[in-house]
Each structure stands twice: as C-alpha cells, then as structure tokens.
C-alpha cells in the first residue's frame, strides 16, 4: 500500500529520518517497505502492511503510530485536533432516517448530514495528497471522504440526499433480480448474498464495496448524507469475490475495522467538507451501534516475555513501547502487567501478541543467539527415509537418473482436483508411469539410452502410497529383470520370483503394459510390483514397485558365506527342449538333482534356429561344482553330473546333447 512521506511527517513536530532510513526502520521493526520513490516534493513509500495489521495500518495514522513507537516521538499537539461546529437549528433526524436490517452484518452505522454544500474542485493540497497515494481527484466532497479514509483507514461514502427515495437509508441484503449501476458505470446483478445500502425502493450502493451512480454527488448537490459504517468482514469478502469487484473500501472492510473508528472518521470528514465545500454540519450524529466494543484487557507476564524472547528487556522499555503504540498499562510495579488493548488493535488478543509488540519494537537484532539446553535425546530413525535413500543410491549406482514429476496428470485418475490449475493437471496421478513417459519423450531425441526413476506418492480415493517406478529405453526385459534382482539382493530381500502377468479388472493401469512380456514380481506370496515392456512402445521397459511393501520386506541383516578354500570345477551341459519349455523348469531339475555341491548354475546361451528340428531350443549351462571341505575328485563330479543328465532325460521331450 502507498503512503506519503510528507503526510506521515505532518503528524510530528520533530523531523522524521530521511525516507530511505525510515523505510529501513519500518522494514526491520514493522512492515517491509518494498519501494521508496520521489514524486514531486514528496516521497512515496510502498509498504507491505501485514494482513493482521490491516485494521489499523491501512492508514497514515497507523503507520505514524508505528513511527512514533520506533523513534520515541510524540504526536504533534495539532495533529487530529479539530473542532466540530454543528448547526444547532438543524437536526439530522429530520433529514434522513436510517434502518439497519441485520445487526450482525452491520455492527455500526453512523451518518451525518451536511446542508448547503457546494460541490466543486478540491484545493491543491488535497489533490496532491490523493495523487501521491494513487487516487484520482473527483470533487471536494468525494475527495474529503477519500482523504479521511487514507488518514484513518475508515472508508466513507457521501450520498446526495435529494436523490434518495423517501430520504431513507436501509442496510439490507439485495433481493433476487435487483440491479445496480455503480459510480464507474458498471452494471451488477445482485442476489440475496450481497449486502446493499438501499433507499425506500432500490439499492443505491453495494455496502462496503462501491457506491451507486444514482445518488452521486454533482454540481447540483445541496445536501449530503455522509456514511461511516462498519460491515462484517466475511460478508464483504464474499460479496467482493462473487461480484469480482474490489475497491479501497472493500479491501479495508474485508480485513476488519474497529467500529469505534467510524465516529472519529465521520467527524473528521464532516469538518473537512464544511471547510472546503462550505455548508453547515447538521446537528446530531445518527448512530446505529447496538453493541459497543470496549477495550480488552490482557495480562502480560514479564518473566514469560523474557523466557519467550530469550532476552531481558528493561521494564521501562516495555512500558514505553506499549504506551506509544496506544496500550494502557496498570500494575506497573508488579511483574505481571494489566494491559488495556486499544480497540483499533484487532490483532491483539493474547499475551504473546503483546510480547511480539515489545520484541519487534525493541529489535529482534538485539536478541542473542543461545543454544537451547535440551536433554541429549538422539533423533529417531525414519525407516521410510532410510530405505528411500538406500533405494535411490542403488538406482544411481546402476546408472539411473532420478526425476521429480508433478503429482498431477491429465489422464483420468480416481482423485479429481476441484479447482485444477489447468486441464493438463486435472487429476492426481494414480501411477508414476505417465509422467515418466513424458520425460522419455522429452529426452529421447538427445540420448541413446535413458534410464530414469522416481520415488513418489500416487493417489487413489482417499489414500496415498509411495511407489518406486522407472522407465528405461534401449534395454530389454531381461536386463531390467537383472536390475530388479540386484535391487532385491541389495535390499536383503530373498524369495523373489516372477509370475505371469494377470490383468485384473481393478488394475487401472493394466492398459500400460504389454502383458505378454510382463511379469508380476512377488516375494513369497506378496505382490510387490510389475516389470515388463510397455504397450505403446516396445523400445521401453518399465518397473513399478510398491515402496511401502519393499521397505517392510527390506532388511539390513546380511550374513557372510564362507569362501571355499578348495577349487571349483565347471562342467557344461546343453539340453534341447521344446519351444515352450521355461528355463526355470530346467533349472529346477538341475538344482534338485545336483544337490548341495552344485553351487551355481549359469545359463550362458539360448539358441533356436532352422537347423534344430521342431523349433526346439538349445539351452547351454555352466554348472559349477564346489565343496567347502575338500577338493572334489573328478569321479565325484562325474557322478553328480550323470545324475543331472539322468534327471533331465526323465522328461521324454528333453534331450541332453552329448
């Protein structure tokens, strides 16, 4: 919000620090000053008033109060002391009647009547002040109302009394079908959620947001009704959102304003108008204020303040800071103050709020850095993060690049976003694969081979779980299967096996896989994920693992297997099998027949060609024999090898090549 430096200066006799110095002080103690700019003979300060302080600091008076506390300045005696002279012969009640239909939406409504005004251009000083603050000059009456708003933070509005039907002001909700044309000639259709100011027949202003064209002040205006009201912040906020209409007034009302401010502001405005537009202030303030707001009282425990801030602030400094901000203190001699909070400080309701006031004005820079004296409790290990880090390191070692993708996708998912940022991001991802595929697409032109993975949440209904997913280009199924084996080995997960892919109806991403070249990965009888070729692009293979299951299966335990001191013997063996025989079947026979002295069986070739009849395939194995306690004799090895051959040949369709 824009503030005038000269205006702030006008509250004080003493000279304020130079604009950039004042800006720095405000930034460190009150609100960030985003910009200081010279305009004519004045400077503009763009101050980012914190939202909880809008109530008192969307005003020059509020910022001046901050400055007074920061600089230890007194307000000039002249500031704000104006004398209200009313015309005792005229009574406001005879001019206009006010009716508030809903007290909760309008806790206070004050009005004053000024008769025999002469609307016209504003004096230069007034035009200048408004202009510096970014407001256009309209005429002396409207300008005076705006000026008082910028000074005090209370929005005001002036109606031409003659233009109000039956000279009535009614605060009520709009009726369905009612319309209003605002001062800037926009037409709005109103409904029963919009609070309006109406005359006997129709809305003449959108309450707290914008005035209507009808009772506009112009050169013919003779008598005006000045409104200074307090509206419920959430009603104004909702109305402003619904109509998509914001104004200086709505901005202030939706942040809440002190209802006691309405009276001060209307008197200031009435005096200013009578000074610059002539006219007589009709006697009597019309004031609908059924529930007066009184100052709150809060206890401030100085020991607690010291304990919370971590610095001892002298009692007199605490007192000074609070009084300059408008707080009243009792029990000065005790360690617990009774503090009376001025009603304009809507943000202060607990003693921590007071401690903040003291701390920031005193200066956070004066608080020392002190390590806490906490007990030596070592941090707990987070298993989820522990295993996530291990898994990520494994994939990095295997040459994978880690990707972070959006949690959103355009493809259908179970969880839909109510207010998506765009149609591209309408659903929460039920799988990490679609976004990883986009990564592949983006990079495939620049890289021969891509290996990417992501560890992230997927969403279904009201649940979320972490998946470990990767997509690889330029590697076949078996390479990826080898990568899976290595992953499980490093995680200490044994009993991993690969089952045929069985698409189930509830498997929402079944469509992603080429199920003929895909497998389900199981540990014992637990399904942990999938592995296979992707349907839309045979160059791509992928894996999709349930990380929540992985981390519970993973173990850090590892047992050393003694290395035999005795040499190993390798014998090769080739078997011809029918085309649909699985390698695993053959391996099982070899391992069972071989017994414990066969320590490894390594498939080194699969061959299928025209010269082999019936489309049979030739499987070639290295069989490694070794004992822990002796060197195996060639006779021992020969016997076992013959057992294996015999066992294989029990299957009439298998033929060991000799």
């Amino acid at each position, binding site marked *: 919000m824009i503030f005038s430096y000269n205006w702030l200066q006008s509250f004080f006799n003493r000279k304020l620090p130079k604009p950039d110095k004042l800006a720095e002080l405000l930034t*460190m*103690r009150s*609100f*960030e000053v985003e910009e200081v700019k010279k305009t004519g003979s004045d400077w503009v300060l763009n101050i980012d008033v*914190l*939202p*909880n*302080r809008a109530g008192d600091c969307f005003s020059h008076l509020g910022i001046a109060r901050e400055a007074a506390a920061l600089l230890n300045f007194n307000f000039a005696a002249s500031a704000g002391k104006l004398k209200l002279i009313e015309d005792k012969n005229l009574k406001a009640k005879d001019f206009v009647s006010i009716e508030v239909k809903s007290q909760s939406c309008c806790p206070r409504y004050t009005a004053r009547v000024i008769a025999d005004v002469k609307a016209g251009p504003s004096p230069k000083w007034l035009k200048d002040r408004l202009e510096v603050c970014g407001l256009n000059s309209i005429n002396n009456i409207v300008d005076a109302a705006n000026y008082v708003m910028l000074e005090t933070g209370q929005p005001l509005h002036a109606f031409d009394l003659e233009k109000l039907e039956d000279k009535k002001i009614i605060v009520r909700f709009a009726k369905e079908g009612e319309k209003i044309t605002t001062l800037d000639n926009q037409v709005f259709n109103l409904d029963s959620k919009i609070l309006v100011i109406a005359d006997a027949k129709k809305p003449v202003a959108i309450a707290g947001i914008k005035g209507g064209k009808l009772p506009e002040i112009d050169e013919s205006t003779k008598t005006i009704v000045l409104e200074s009201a307090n509206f419920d912040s959430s009603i104004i906020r909702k109305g402003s959102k619904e109509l998509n209409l914001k104004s200086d007034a709505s901005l202030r009302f939706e942040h809440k304003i002190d209802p006691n401010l309405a009276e001060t502001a209307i008197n200031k405005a009435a005096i200013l108008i009578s000074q610059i537009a002539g006219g007589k202030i009709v006697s009597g303030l019309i004031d609908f204020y059924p529930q007066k707001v009184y100052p709150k009282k809060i206890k401030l425990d100085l020991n607690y303040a010291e*304990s*919370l*801030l*971590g*610095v001892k602030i002298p009692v007199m400094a605490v007192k000074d800071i609070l009084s300059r901000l408008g707080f009243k203190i009792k029990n000065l001699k005790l360690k617990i103050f009774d503090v009376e909070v001025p009603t304009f400080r809507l943000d202060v309701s*607990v*003693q*921590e709020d007071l*401690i*903040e006031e003291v*701390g920031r004005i005193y200066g*956070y*820079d004066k*608080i*020392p*850095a*002190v*390590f806490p004296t*906490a007990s*030596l*409790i070592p*941090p707990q290990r*987070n298993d*989820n*993060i522990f295993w996530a880090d291990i898994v990520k*390191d494994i*994939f*990095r*070692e295997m*040459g*994978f*690049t*880690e*990707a*972070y993708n*959006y*949690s*959103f996708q355009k493809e259908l998912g179970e*969880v839909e*976003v*109510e*207010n*998506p*940022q765009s149609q591209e*991001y309408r659903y*929460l991802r039920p799988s990490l694969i679609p976004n990883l595929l986009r990564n592949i697409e*983006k*990079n495939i032109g*620049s890289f021969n081979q891509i290996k990417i993975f992501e560890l*992230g*949440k997927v969403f279904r209904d*009201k649940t979320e779980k972490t998946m470990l997913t990767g997509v690889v280009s330029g590697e076949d199924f078996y390479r990826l299967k080898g990568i899976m084996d290595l992953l499980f080995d490093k995680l200490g997960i044994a009993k991993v096996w690969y089952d045929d892919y069985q698409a189930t109806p509830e498997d929402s991403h079944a469509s992603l896989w080429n199920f003929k070249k895909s497998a389900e990965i199981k540990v014992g009888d637990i399904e942990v994920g999938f592995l296979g070729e992707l349907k839309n692009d045979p160059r791509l293979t992928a894996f999709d693992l349930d990380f929540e299951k992985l981390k519970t299966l993973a173990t850090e335990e590892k047992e050393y297997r003694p290395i035999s001191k005795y040499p190993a013997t390798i014998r090769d063996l080739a078997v011809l099998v029918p085309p649909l025989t699985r390698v695993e079947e053959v391996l099982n026979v070899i391992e069972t027949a071989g017994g414990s002295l066969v320590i490894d069986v390594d498939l080194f070739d699969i061959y299928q060609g025209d010269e082999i009849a019936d489309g049979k395939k030739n499987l070639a194995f290295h069989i490694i024999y070794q004992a822990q306690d002796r060197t195996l004799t060639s006779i021992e090895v020969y016997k076992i090898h013959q057992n294996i051959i015999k066992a294989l040949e029990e299957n009439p369709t298998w033929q060991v090549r000799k």
Partner: protein
Amino acid sequence: MAKTKGSLNLLKNKAKKEIDSAKDLKDLDLIYKTYLGDESELAQILRSLKDLSKKKKAKIGKEANELKNFLKIKFTEAAAALKEKAEKEKEMKEWFDITVPGKKAVSGHLHPITLVRRKTEEVFQSMGFSVIEGPEMEEEWYNFDALNIPKNHPARDLWDTFYLKNGLLLRTHTSPVQIRYMEKNQPPLRIIVPGRCFRHEATDFSHEINFYHVEGLMVGEGISVANFKAIIEEFFRKFFGKPMEIRFRPSYFPFVEPGFEIDMKWNNEWLEMMGAGMVHPNVFKNAGLPPHQINGGGWQGFAFGIGLERLAMIKYKVEDIRLFYGGDLKFLNQF
C-alpha cells in the same frame, strides 16, 4: 706386399661402410665379429705375421695394428651413437600424453532436491531433530483450522489451495504435521518435516504448483527466540559451509506469535529464506498440549518453514524453479 697393403685398405673401406650402415647394436656386434673377431681376416693377417720376414713383419704388423686400433675406435663411436639412438627410440615409444580426455565412466544422478533434502536432514539430525513425514492429501482441519487459520479469514488468502473432489485438500505446507505429531507425542520435541506441498498459482521462474517444504518444530521448557536464532544460524553455517549473516524481520503467520521472516545475506543482498516464529498458544491447544499458563507451566517452542527449492537454487545457482520438475536430463544429469 702391395697386395697385403691393398687388401688392408680394402678391408678398412669395407669395414667403415658396414659400421656406418649398422642398424642397431646387435647388427654392430656381428660386424665386429666379422672384422675384429678371432676368425676375421685381420686376425688371420696378424696371426700370419710370425711367418714373415722381419722387415715385412714390422711394416705389415704396424699397418695391421693401426687398422685394428682404427676399427676399435670406430666401433666404440658407432656403438655409442647406436645406443643413444636406441634410447631415444625407447623414449619415443614410452612417451605418454596425459592430456587425452578420460574415458567416460557411467553413473546415475540423484535429483538436486534429494541432495539438498539429505543435507538439510543431516544438519538437523546432528542437532537432535527427528525427521517426520505426513500425508500430502490433508484434512482442512490440520492444514488450516488447527493452525489457527479460521474459515473465511483473509489470512487463508496467503495460501492458494487445491481442493479435491474427495473432500480433502492438497497440503499447502508441511505444518499440519506439527499438529499430527504433537497429538501423539509429549514434549520435549524436536522434529523437522520435509515433504511435498502444493499451491494453486501460476508457474513462473520462482513459483511452482508443487514444491518441497521443510517444517521445523522444537517444543520444550523455556525454548525461546534466542534458541531459534542459534539453531538456524548453525543450520545455515553447516548447510553453506561457512557462517552466514542473517536477520529477523517481523512477519505474520497465524500459527506463530511472535512471527518473523528470516533473511540471509547472499552476494551483498538480503534474500528471504524462511518464515518462523514462536508456536501460537492456540496451536498447542488444538494439538492437545497446554500452552504457557499465567501462573507458570505449559509449553513453549518455535516453528519454521523453509523451501528446499530455494536452498537448491542458491546452492547450485539455478535461476528457474521449473527446471526441477521439467524432467530434462540435460539438467538432471548435472547433479
């Protein structure tokens, strides 16, 4: 005699020619044997001297010995030259260019946010903070109400929120985990909560619709702003590897009081690094813990929130936040 003399001359010229054309020491050795060996012509001449007349003996003997000496010198010179040549050749053969580029080793890459998150966790764990996580789909109560951000309050505008059709919302910060953790654990507490958060806003170089936040919470007896200052200075010192200048500015977050913004000096400019403050008594109440009581007792503590992208952008000099989520391997493979 003339014959002998002529043949000695012939021998000299022939030998000279062969010595000069020797390719290597082995070659030279053979030539040596031919001309100076036991079976050489010269050796035979010298051996036959005893059968000659005294006069002839003296004359031919002298000439033959002169030739012998001449050849010996010649061989020594040639051997030295050949040795030098061989050494040079050997040196050439062994010459090695260390400036040839190394052969590419293959390794994968972790995402920069993972790296920064690990570092952050490491520093806080060293100060006794446990790392805790929470759900990304959150209830309105935990994300807002419990954190002292009531419905229809303008403060909610500070967080542009994605609402879901299943009745939940996407958390706008990891602060809800404060409440979830305090509900189940008794102080003293020291936790950080890293995790993915979401904001409904237009993306640009400094804004993303999802991003990572680390929330911190320390609750205990007499925990103060001064304590927070020490902890956060230590964090920056360890994270950036040197002491960093920081400053506190007043700020407003409904779940803390007092609240502040922490700036860090970087390249002579103040950068906004995080929001922080002392846990608001209403937050303690909402989590079922007693806040400070006027007659003593009750808990106090600090909370803060820092963006991991911000840390990564400073640490790695990345100027556009969107690179983190773009999946461009030319970017990701740099880490």
